[in-house]
């Protein structure tokens, strides 16, 4: 009798420990998403006013109006470019940190964490000083007399992508590094001793074994880029707004909650699909491993 009572208490214990966290996640994330879904069927009357007569109007508008599709396509394209460039730029440093015999490699790792401590807003606007009319590039080119007019680089799609790469790159490098660091070095030596060149050993052994980290980095970069709206706000021009800006404007400026929630649900579902496809192939554990570093 005493034993079974103890085990009942024992069974309850993890749930007691989890209760506050679960309550927070359910009340602050799941329930709001549920309400959002309901609101997407409400009818918009005028700014800030909607009525709960359920209808498909917002959804019909979303699916039929090419204005929204354009935003969706642009967001997907820019996020994909950003994620791919992050992978290309992120792989060599991750490889270097994982393979180097440099004594102070902790310093390189620390430097990857440091950007996370620096305000995202400040890191983003710092690009104004690089690409702007009075920025480093234009100021030095004009100082050297190579150009007479500043080259317009800021407030373009390129500057938005640059800003997003800047903030996503540490995630990418860390994810790839975690993967590379976990590779058994004997496998690489074995490939070498069996006659592989360095490049072959990399292509046949190291690269495939680092794919989970690379995949996690790509997913994370894509999802974070596709959800962002502050970077385009700071570094983009009027035509460089992304889907996130559309949601923000619809809700905070037009006060059109039904359409705004419809668009939010769209973003959530599309990015959810990307994550699910990913986790089927790789498992979410690589993401959590990369994040907890």
């Amino acid at each position: 009798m005493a034993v079974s009572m103890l085990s009942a208490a024992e069974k309850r214990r993890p749930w007691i420990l989890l209760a506050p966290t679960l309550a927070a996640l359910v009340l602050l994330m799941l329930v709001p998403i549920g309400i959002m879904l309901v609101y997407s069927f409400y009818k918009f009357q005028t700014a800030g006013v909607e009525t709960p007569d359920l209808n498909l109007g917002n959804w019909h508008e979303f699916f039929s109006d090419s204005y929204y599709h354009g935003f969706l396509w642009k967001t997907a394209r820019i996020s994909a470019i950003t994620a791919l460039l992050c992978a290309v730029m992120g792989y060599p440093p991750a490889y270097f940190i994982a393979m180097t015999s440099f004594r102070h490699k902790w310093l390189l790792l620390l430097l990857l964490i440091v950007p996370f401590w620096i305000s995202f807003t400040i890191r983003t606007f710092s690009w104004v000083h690089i690409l702007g009319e009075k920025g480093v590039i234009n100021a030095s080119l004009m100082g050297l007399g190579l150009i007479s007019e500043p080259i317009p680089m800021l407030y373009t799609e390129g500057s938005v992508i640059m800003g997003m790469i800047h903030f996503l790159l540490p995630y990418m490098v860390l994810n790839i590094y975690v993967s590379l660091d976990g590779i058994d070095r004997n496998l690489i030596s074995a490939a070498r001793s069996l006659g592989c060149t360095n490049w072959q050993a990399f292509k046949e052994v190291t690269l495939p074994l680092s794919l989970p980290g690379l995949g996690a980095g790509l997913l994370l970069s894509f999802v974070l880029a596709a959800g962002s709206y502050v970077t385009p706000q700071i570094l983009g021009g009027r035509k460089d707004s992304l889907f996130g800006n559309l949601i923000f404007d619809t809700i905070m400026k037009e006060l059109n909650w039904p359409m705004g929630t419809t668009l939010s649900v769209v973003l959530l579902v599309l990015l959810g699909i990307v994550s699910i496809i990913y986790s089927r192939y790789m498992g979410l554990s690589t993401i959590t491993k990369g994040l907890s570093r």
Partner: protein
Amino acid sequence: MNESARGWGLIKLVTFLVYLFMFAPIIVVLILSFNASQFGGFPMTGFSLHWYGELMQNESVVRAFKTSLWIGIVTALVCTTIGTMAALALVRYEFPGKHWVNALIVGPVLVPETVLGVGLLLANRAAGMKANFGLLLLGHILLSLPYVVLVVQARLIGVKRVYEEAALSLGANRLQAFREITMPLIMPAVLAGLLLAFTISFDNVSASVFWRPPGVETMPTEILGMLKVSISPQINALGALMIVITVGLPLLGGALARLTIRRQTKA
């Protein structure tokens, strides 16, 4: 062999360039914050601390700083407490549905902040309330919580259960075993979680813009507002100040921790 040396040299070069890419803009902000010019960009017209002085006089900046500080501290304390409890449950116990709980906890990381922002504000509105301070605070807790759980979880996996079992078999109760054995062993991760939660809260802008009550600014939303007007030299000074604080404090903390550990092991 020659070819592989060249390949390695190339990797080294790219690594250097990537680090340059990551830090050059930040260093430029630091340099420009001392520019005497009344415009926020190049060229440098002289060295001056003028804009730092202006900043200290700027009441709305000081107020935003205090707001962010408070929200950050409360968020960090709440998240560390409940996040550590959750991590314990996830690592030390087996229970049905654990897989789902783990997936739910990563949720706030993968759900775009825009969606989290809209959702929570809508829930608040549906409950008939206006945006308020509590909303901002709860939102920040939601954003930071997953990171604390993940960091503590990762550390806890490395702490062998035998230590706790030894304490239990020597007559300690669960709470004592946790306080005397487990807690000291996971302390570095708990502190890291605390710091991380504070940083995430202090830094958040995308979701905070939805949640902040009218008239209330956090540090990042204040900067965002200032940016809309122009790149004033004050923003550079503010940026530089925040970089020094947010990078300096954790480094100092880390160095101090290292020092105490060294002293303890010597004693």
